[in-house]
């Protein structure tokens, strides 16, 4: 059944290499992993991207030029405004600017169109004054990373939606809910997986059998329809926070199986090993043996699994919210923002509404890169 149980593979010429003591032989397991990890270019890129996301989450108010719920009635469903340093005559201009705009009503469709007003240029600067807020939740300030310095001007880097909200600011803020769901979901999955897999692997026998059947069952059913059904059962009148928590729990409910499987198989493998036997002989309790001796010995594998589970949960939340069954306003996640882009009519009018999706993709990519690097680093057979 198991495809890996094939004829033993022997790289028969590898067997006789002369051993040589290198730095590697003297390093700890974690150091070794770090060295391998550092050589994995994609994984390092993933790390950097995740660092940027972390900054986004922590300094959202500082990075976004506008509060996420501030409407700009003068610029509804407006296209992204990109600052430039070259003016219309091809001359260099400092500071950077965005073109001033004026609204014109289309005679036929009666829709408002925004056309550039060549006489007006709005200067863009760094560390400008904006709406007051509390940095990190407690430092009162009104300095924003960037913004328009010209009185009466505005700049929407990603454009605005149909109600005139700044998409850039919203996207930055939405990182909190989106990554939050992923993070909390992974933590719950982790706990569930470690507990259930731990019980199965440690006790073995019929307990193990039941757990394995359950995992197999959960794996063989399509997750999204079940998620949708569970999410649809949440009462509509729950508070946004309650919904948020409930959705997170639902997503992790079906996501723990990978972790449980890893924990179980590693436990079964380490159960026979000397150090566990030694611990048992010296009278350690079962829980203590699992938690203190066995878990650390395969922690690296769990971290790999977690880094794989994260993007799945993130994608699931995005899909659910996009369909209107996941998180809802006023909670903002990338999926919630994408909800506005649901119909072909709206993306035809305002294709920039799909930009939050790019953030989803980058976040998932970052985690996948990281996961690959971790997997290679945790695998003792790669060099």
């Amino acid at each position, binding site marked *: 059944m198991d495809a890996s149980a094939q004829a033993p593979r*022997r790289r028969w010429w590898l067997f006789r290499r002369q051993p040589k003591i290198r730095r590697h032989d003297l390093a700890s397991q974690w150091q070794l992993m770090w060295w391998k990890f550092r050589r994995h270019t994609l994984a390092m890129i993933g790390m950097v991207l995740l660092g940027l996301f972390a900054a986004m989450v922590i300094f959202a108010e500082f990075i976004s030029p506008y509060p996420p719920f501030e409407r700009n009635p003068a610029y509804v469903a407006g296209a992204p405004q990109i600052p430039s340093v070259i003016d219309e005559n091809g001359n260099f201009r400092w500071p950077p600017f965005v073109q001033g705009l004026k609204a014109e009503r289309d005679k036929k469709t009666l829709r408002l169109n925004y056309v550039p007003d060549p006489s007006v240029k709005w200067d863009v600067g760094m560390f400008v004054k904006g709406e007051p807020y509390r940095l990190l939740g407690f430092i009162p300030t009104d300095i924003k990373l960037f913004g328009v310095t010209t009185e009466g001007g505005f700049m929407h880097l990603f454009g605005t939606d149909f109600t005139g909200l700044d998409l850039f600011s919203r996207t930055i803020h939405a990182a909190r809910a989106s990554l939050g769901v992923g993070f909390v979901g992974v933590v719950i999955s982790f706990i569930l997986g470690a507990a259930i897999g731990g019980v199965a692997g440690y006790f073995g026998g019929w307990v193990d059998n039941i757990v394995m059947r359950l995992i197999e069952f959960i794996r063989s059913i399509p*997750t999204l329809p079940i998620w949708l059904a569970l999410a649809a059962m949440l009462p509509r009148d729950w508070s946004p926070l309650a919904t948020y928590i409930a959705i997170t729990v639902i997503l992790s409910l079906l996501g723990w199986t990978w972790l449980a499987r890893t924990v179980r198989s590693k436990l079964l493998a380490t159960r026979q090993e000397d150090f566990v036997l030694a611990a048992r002989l010296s009278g350690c309790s079962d829980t203590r043996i699992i938690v203190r001796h066995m878990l650390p010995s395969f922690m690296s594998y769990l971290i790999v699994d977690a880094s794989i589970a994260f993007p799945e949960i993130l*994608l699931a939340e995005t899909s659910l919210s996009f369909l*209107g069954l996941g998180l809802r306003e006023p909670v903002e996640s990338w999926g919630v923002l994408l909800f506005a882009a649901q119909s072909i009519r709206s993306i035809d009018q305002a294709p920039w509404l799909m930009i939050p999706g790019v953030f989803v993709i980058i976040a998932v990519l970052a985690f996948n890169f990281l996961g690959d690097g971790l997997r290679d680093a945790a695998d003792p057979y790669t060099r």
Partner: protein
Amino acid sequence: MTRFLMRRLAYTLATLLLVSLVSFIIIQAAPGDFAEIYAAKKADAGAVISAAQIAEVRRELGLDQPWYVQYGTWLANAARGDFGQSWTWRRPVGAVIAERLPLTLAIAFATLVFMYVVSIPIGVYSAVRRYSFGDHAASLIGYLGLAIPNFLLALVLMYLSQRYFGQSVGGLFSPQYSLAPWSWEKLQDLLQHLIVPVIVLGTSGTAFLIRAMRAAVLDELDRMYVLSAKASGLSPMQLLLRYPVRIALVPIASTLGWRLTYVISGAPIVGVVLSLPDMGPLFLNSLLNQDMQLAGALIFLYCALTIIGTFLSDVLLVALDPRIRLE
């Protein structure tokens, strides 16, 4: 071999039963039962309904029985294709689904074929020309394919085809064919419309399979029997196709069930975005409208499809790997 298949069959049946129970629980867990919804509808229409009447309806429908009796009845009816009434459609659930099931199956099947046909050659190429430009390109596309949510890909493709081809990709038929009887042209029209859903549904699976195939072939390339076959005079191409690729297909085939699970899992959302007349929009609307008879039946079907697909992939595995027949 028969023992292996019998065991899988028994397992499949047990899983189906379990899934039916889950579906039933989902139907039951929704707030309000059919009688109350029925009463509310009637009340909306201006009729006056007494509590006694509700109780009457409830008795008629067997809703006053304990849950296991209700489950038994539901299951027995379901086995005959009777999943009760859908109140949003005012028609039997079975009939509503039957209209859309063939297209759902067609999309799932076409997607599976697409995934395997595209990923196997690319995976083999990537393994044989490891670290070549093509390999790097394939793995880049693979990463992207895994990272793009289905619905977003659907949106982007829809937007692009609207903008640059002036053609809407929604639906499965052009207007002139949607009501026409089946004909060669209609089939062609259908296939053209299937391209976008299939790409959308198949991309992440294809990306996954390319990686899996690459790893499997790489694994096999190192084995002794490849060297010994080479030593008996096979040309590189013969060698590659007859041994490493053929054997790498075993683990790949064993993932067929999972792939199907993924395709089925992604199908509802893609159906909604592309407004396909398959089970997807039906499912979403039934959930949004709390039409639980319909939703429960659809969940059951979605699950049943993947479970049966998994069983079929086991059968395929037996055909591909003689070692399993030994069991």
